[in-house]
């Protein structure tokens, strides 16, 4: 059946919406394939606005990996803004892809990448606009298989009713294996319908299919057990791990948008995984072990990526980029290569470490000297021990002094509020720290015009971390502590004007907490919020706490659970957690032991340079830490 482009129907609506360019596609390096020339068709979505979704690495990698195959096409779709949604409903225009402007409902797979749970309501908008029934059980063979991926997929229970499957972990290889299975099933004439397709994907260990598991509850509301409801389905679904990043040098030709987006740079992951062991950090726990990309592959990707895009900035991505075994050589090599070419290099926020200043100096050699960002996360020494962020205040002062002494004028510090065992005083100590930073900075730089910005967010306990049992701090206390901190900073006559402070109120974080650690009963809340108009919950101007609160009250009335039960309640060791049947490789006993360690201030070293402490990932997943050094160097580029 031919699938026509919807562009002719879309075009007359475009002059009537904000930023129409986000809906027209036509980005450099976009791919449009002949619909009938392939066997398997994926629609990929980042469920947020185009300007946020387009730069997403996960989607761009899958888009390229899938489109490189002759038997497959992949197109992209993003959340439409409410002005466009209203026009689409008025004119009967379904959710479309921006590449071929094809209806999402016509694809074989509708894959959504969730890096934050606040995108769940946007998924419902997209499903509804696509004409795909919201509930997986109402779908038939004419509908795409709806698959969720990304970090939030490590606990997809709150969206279990809406998705057909979830992929845990790295998507590159898994997407290809799903494609193989789909093609085989289609070529056999779709035996057994979508149920059989899902069964095959689940039995092969590729995906988690929520419908194949039953959840029983105890009278007090806790989960009694989660068990497969048919034979041949693994009891625990394991994550996928790509072991050799040099074999997967994606994105090679990243999309270059015409519209302005949140990141306008060529990003290269220099390694995946992190074993620093920060206890709050879900990314660091679920992406283990560390797998480095070699210096030569990084250099090669940067060279080709700049040529393919024309970007002026290169981001060296990872969870802790300064930890790459050859980061010094990478930074120097790239800075040498692009000397005088107006290509700037950047690292995301780095650990507090004087070595990072040397790195930053190297990276800023060719381009813009913006500020430096560090993430001490906890305001007091005690707090940093609890979260296993092993840095002393003296380390920090030494590091920022070096930075200011080297000509940097602006330092940004990231913190969290609401960490386990935190007191008012722990948060107020952030003001002391900022004061010392400015003091030391003025001395080191011998000038007064230096600045320090404190950026502070509310802590949300996440699944598969040692803090998965912790009580989330109520939003009233979070807000009170943040206000007190702000007053302490602003009230400082000598230093207040040199210190900026940025924070958001704690209420969106509480809802993020509900969606992060919720179970299947939370699905009804998401649906109610969406039905009452909830859209773009990650945007403070669109987020309505009252709507979520009301939906929780309506949904949970007469049940033993409520919003607080899911968020501010501490869990006990014996409790079955909603994600226990989903395997990130982490040994639950180790997580618990680490949680207990944190309460007594015990620290854990990084297993890259100390003996293994049995977190469970490597033996469980058949993986191992892969770090250099390779001993190779980046040679100067020879002009062609």
């Amino acid at each position: 059946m031919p699938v026509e482009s919807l562009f002719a129907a879309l075009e007359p609506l475009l002059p009537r919406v904000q930023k129409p360019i986000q809906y027209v596609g036509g980005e450099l390096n976009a791919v449009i394939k002949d619909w009938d020339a392939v066997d398997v068709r994926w629609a990929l979505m980042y469920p947020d606005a185009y300007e946020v979704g387009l730069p997403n690495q996960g989607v761009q990698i899958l888009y390229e990996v899938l489109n490189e195959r002759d038997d497959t096409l992949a197109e992209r779709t993003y959340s439409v803004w409410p002005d466009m949604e209203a026009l689409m409903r008025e004119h009967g225009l379904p959710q479309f892809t921006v590449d071929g402007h094809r209806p999402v409902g016509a694809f074989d797979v509708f894959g959504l990448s969730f890096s934050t749970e606040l995108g769940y309501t946007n998924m419902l908008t997209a499903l509804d606009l696509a004409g795909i029934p919201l509930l997986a059980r109402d779908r038939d063979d004419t509908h795409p298989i709806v698959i969720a991926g990304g970090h939030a997929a490590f606990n997809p229970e709150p969206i279990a009713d809406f998705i057909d499957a979830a992929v845990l972990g790295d998507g590159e290889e898994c997407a290809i294996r799903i494609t193989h299975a789909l093609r085989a099933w289609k070529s056999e004439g779709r035996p057994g319908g979508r149920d059989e397709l899902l069964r095959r994907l689940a039995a092969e260990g590729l995906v988690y299919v929520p419908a194949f598991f039953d959840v029983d509850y105890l009278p007090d509301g806790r989960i009694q057990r989660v068990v497969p409801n048919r034979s041949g389905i693994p009891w625990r679904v394991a994550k996928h791990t790509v072991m050799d990043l040099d074999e997967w040098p994606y994105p090679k030709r990243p999309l270059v948008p015409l519209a302005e987006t949140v990141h306008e740079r060529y990003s290269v992951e220099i390694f995946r995984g992190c074993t620093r062991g920060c206890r709050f950090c879900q990314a660091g726990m679920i992406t283990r072990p560390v797998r480095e990309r070699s210096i030569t592959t990084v250099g090669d990707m940067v060279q080709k990526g700049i040529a393919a895009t024309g970007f002026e900035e290169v981001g060296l991505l990872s969870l802790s980029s300064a930890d790459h075994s050859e980061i010094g050589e990478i930074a120097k090599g790239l800075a040498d290569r692009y000397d005088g070419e107006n290509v700037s290099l950047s690292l995301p926020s780095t650990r507090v470490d004087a070595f990072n200043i040397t790195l930053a100096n190297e990276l800023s050699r060719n381009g813009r000297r913006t500020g430096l960002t560090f993430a001490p996360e906890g305001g007091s020494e005690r707090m940093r021990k609890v979260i296993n962020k092993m840095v002393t205040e003296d380390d920090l002062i030494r590091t920022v002094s070096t930075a200011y002494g080297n000509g940097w004028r602006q330092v940004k510090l990231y913190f969290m509020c609401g960490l386990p065992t935190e007191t008012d005083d722990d948060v107020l100590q952030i003001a002391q720290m900022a004061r010392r930073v400015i003091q030391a900075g003025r001395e080191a730089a011998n000038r007064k015009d230096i600045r320090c910005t404190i950026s502070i967010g509310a802590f949300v306990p996440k699944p598969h971390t040692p803090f998965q049992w912790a009580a989330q701090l109520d939003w009233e206390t979070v807000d009170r502590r943040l206000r007190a901190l702000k007053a302490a900073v602003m009230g400082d006559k000598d230093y207040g004007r040199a210190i900026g402070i940025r924070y958001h109120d704690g209420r969106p974080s509480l809802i993020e907490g509900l969606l992060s650690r919720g179970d299947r009963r939370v699905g009804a809340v998401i649906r109610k919020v969406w039905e009452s108009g909830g859209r773009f919950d990650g945007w403070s101007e669109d987020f309505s706490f009252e709507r979520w609160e009301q939906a929780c009250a309506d949904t949970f009335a007469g049940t033993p659970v409520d919003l607080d039960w899911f968020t501010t309640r501490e869990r006990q060791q014996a409790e079955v957690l909603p994600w226990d049947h989903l395997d990130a490789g982490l040994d639950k006993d180790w997580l618990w032991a680490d949680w207990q360690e944190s309460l007594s201030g015990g620290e854990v070293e990084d297993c890259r340079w100390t003996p293994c402490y049995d977190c469970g990932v490597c033996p469980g997943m058949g993986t191992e830490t892969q770090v250099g050094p390779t001993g190779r160097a980046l040679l100067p580029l020879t002009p062609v």
Partner: protein
Amino acid sequence: MARQPDTPPPPPVVQRLRIRYAKRGRLRFTSHRDFARAFERALRRAAVPMAYSAGFTPHPKVSYAGAAPTGVASEAEYLEIGLAERREPEHVRTALDDALPPGLDIVEVVDGQPPSLAERIEASLWRVELRGVTVEDTQRAVVALLAASEAPVTKLTKDGHRIVDARAPLVLARVAPEVEGADCAILELVVRHETPAVRPDDVLTALRQVGALSTPVTPFVTRLAQGLLGDAPPAGTEPITLLDPLRDVDGQQLPPAAVSEPLAR
């Protein structure tokens, strides 16, 4: 005094190139900001040896002549770039055109000579496709507007709502003869550039107000040409010549392609 980087100043401009580009099809929804970013990236991909401004955040030397509104197609947008090394204009044209997505097309590149682009542009020729509107109704509205001494319309500018006279800068307005079976009228406008700018949108608002024209579908607008007005007759319906800002022979500007001939269909 502003701090300066302790690196040597960037190489100076040795060549200025003037560029005419088009915004076509779906990429007419590219805003000017979006185009500017895409163009600067294209300069990098095409390895054009740009001259950069000095300072901590060096910018390539690019200056734009007033851009068509977002959603309006154009065959005649202009900009000028400064190069640190000399290049063959036609070579730059093909390289830049290859580096931009289809729909953002580099039409012509020439060596820039005084006077400046701004001094070579005073008006635009616009083509407005009015779908679902008859030639007769359009004609009637145009006659009414041309007969009016002024046509104040409210427009949204960055300083809020402002009232501008859409009649004063209107040098020409005429309707193409009816085409058998076509469900649209084609309107041709020549509008002088003034501050605040009067755009085809504003003329259409005036046609609705003064001439009771109703446009059921968003009109499709294309800028066909920009330049100096030749021997502009008093406002009306006579064909008008716009002098091509990229043409320059012996100091004399020649009228080229940009003539509002009777519209061929």
